[in-house]
């Protein structure tokens, strides 16, 4: 393994935060953060939408920012539509 034997701790700045601990897994009763409800994920519709993407124009995936640096147009149109409907 490359770097074996190197004491990396001596190379990091002393100003850095303390090292992270090992992740211990999710707790049984998880009320933290902003985890969402798995039952509300529209998996079937995601499959349909992903299929539409893969059957679409391959340039979408072969170029940096197909619609420019502000993101794809359908999402920008969605924001515009929703922001004009404060009741949604």
């Amino acid at each position, binding site marked *: 393994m490359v770097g074996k034997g190197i004491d990396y701790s001596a190379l990091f700045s002393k100003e850095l935060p303390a090292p992270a601990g090992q992740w211990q897994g999710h707790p049984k009763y998880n009320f933290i953060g902003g985890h969402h409800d798995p039952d509300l994920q529209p998996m079937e519709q995601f499959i*349909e939408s992903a299929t539409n993407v893969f059957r679409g124009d391959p340039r979408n995936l072969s170029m940096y920012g197909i619609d420019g640096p502000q993101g794809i147009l359908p999402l920008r149109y969605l924001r515009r539509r929703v922001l004009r409907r404060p009741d949604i």
Partner: protein
Amino acid sequence: MDDANHVLHIGSFSKSLGPGIRLGYVVASWDVMSRLLTRKNDAGTGVMDQMIVGDYFSKHYEEHIMNVRSGLRRKRDALAAALREHFGPTVEFEVPRGGMYLWVKLPSGVDSRSLVAPALKEGIAFNPGPDWSADPEAATNYIRLCFALPSESEIWEGVENMAQVFQLRTGD
């Protein structure tokens, strides 16, 4: 959104869809946007996530939001009922009109941060108020509970166990 041009709107799809979809957005006038774009040096946000979400939401947005509201409302009501049942008048809270969080006020003098480790030992995780407040000191005896992930039965069990842990630690 803002005819007076006073608002920068910042959001994400983490709450309307899920945090596994790492997409956020800023809505701003071109005066501001043109400056923000000069600092976006990551060669572009991943297109796959954008296209799938764009395709899905362009067809199902309203229906999806109604479904999410209905599902979260059921869990919010379960959490409120469980808190009343297992904590009684020891705690105070307002039932939120939206979102996925309910803030609970513990008796004054209780530091919610001191309850995190003992609760976690029993498999219960919650956010102490100071971690999520603009005024951490004022939120010392508050906890923030996200009710979206656990099932309704886990909410009931989790709150019952939480009440036992808190009672042991605080005597209330």
